[in-house]
């Protein structure tokens, strides 16, 4: 791992595990991603477990007085973050395979292991 160079960008993997509206953590995770994008960090996002539910289209959280998470997620590519990995097993578990709000890369367990192994730093939200 190249941790000594102050010039080389670290590869940061954000592992998301929470559903979109049960609490504020999912939104706060994406806020962090936006900040990281503004500082041009090399960020990859992995949606696994309940986090795949964040990607369902046609959400209308105004019904529960919350802001739409998918709108914020959709802003990430504008800031140069476009590597969205989604756990195919989690998608299958919820019966969601299409109709996602973002272009994503479906990954299986071994591919996820590789993502984790190749990251320099991991943050878990």
């Amino acid at each position, binding site marked *: 791992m190249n941790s000594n160079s*102050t010039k080389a960008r670290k590869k*940061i993997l954000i592992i998301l595990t929470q559903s979109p509206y049960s609490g504020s*953590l999912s939104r706060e995770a994406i*806020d962090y991603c936006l*900040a*990281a994008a503004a*500082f041009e*960090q090399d960020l990859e996002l992995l949606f696994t477990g309940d986090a795949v539910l964040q990607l369902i289209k046609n959400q209308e959280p105004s019904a529960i007085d919350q802001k739409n998470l998918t709108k914020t997620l959709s802003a990430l590519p504008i800031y140069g973050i476009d590597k969205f990995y989604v756990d195919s097993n989690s998608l299958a578990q919820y019966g969601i395979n299409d109709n996602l709000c973002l272009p994503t890369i479906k990954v299986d367990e071994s591919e996820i292991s590789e993502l984790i192994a190749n990251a320099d730093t991991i*943050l878990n939200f």
Partner: protein
Amino acid sequence: MNYSLVILGAPYSTQSATTALNFTKALLKNGHQIYRIFFYHDAVHNGSELSTPPQDELNIPAEWQKLKKDHSIDLVICIAAAVKRGILDTNEARRHEKSSSNLSDCFELSGLGQLVDATEHSDRVITFGP
């Protein structure tokens, strides 16, 4: 080695803050440096000056304050997450026209850029979940 910690749990609601506290103490004991401790999500409550647990319980916010005083650790609380949850320093209290502030002066309210900076400058970043 240079460490940064990201803490997500409120004191007393889960074990998160206490685990992080004990880990911090062990880091220092083992000669590591702490670049920054960043409090996000519900962990912003660790910065409250008003926390008053019973005398026979650990005073978690006070423990962080003691670590700050003894070791000059950079304790940063996410300003957006804090203000939303009613943790304000005097500046924010004035800005939002609130009657009082409650952030311990051992903590600094700042933006997510501080967490980004911490990930860039630390050898290890450990998340303590909510």
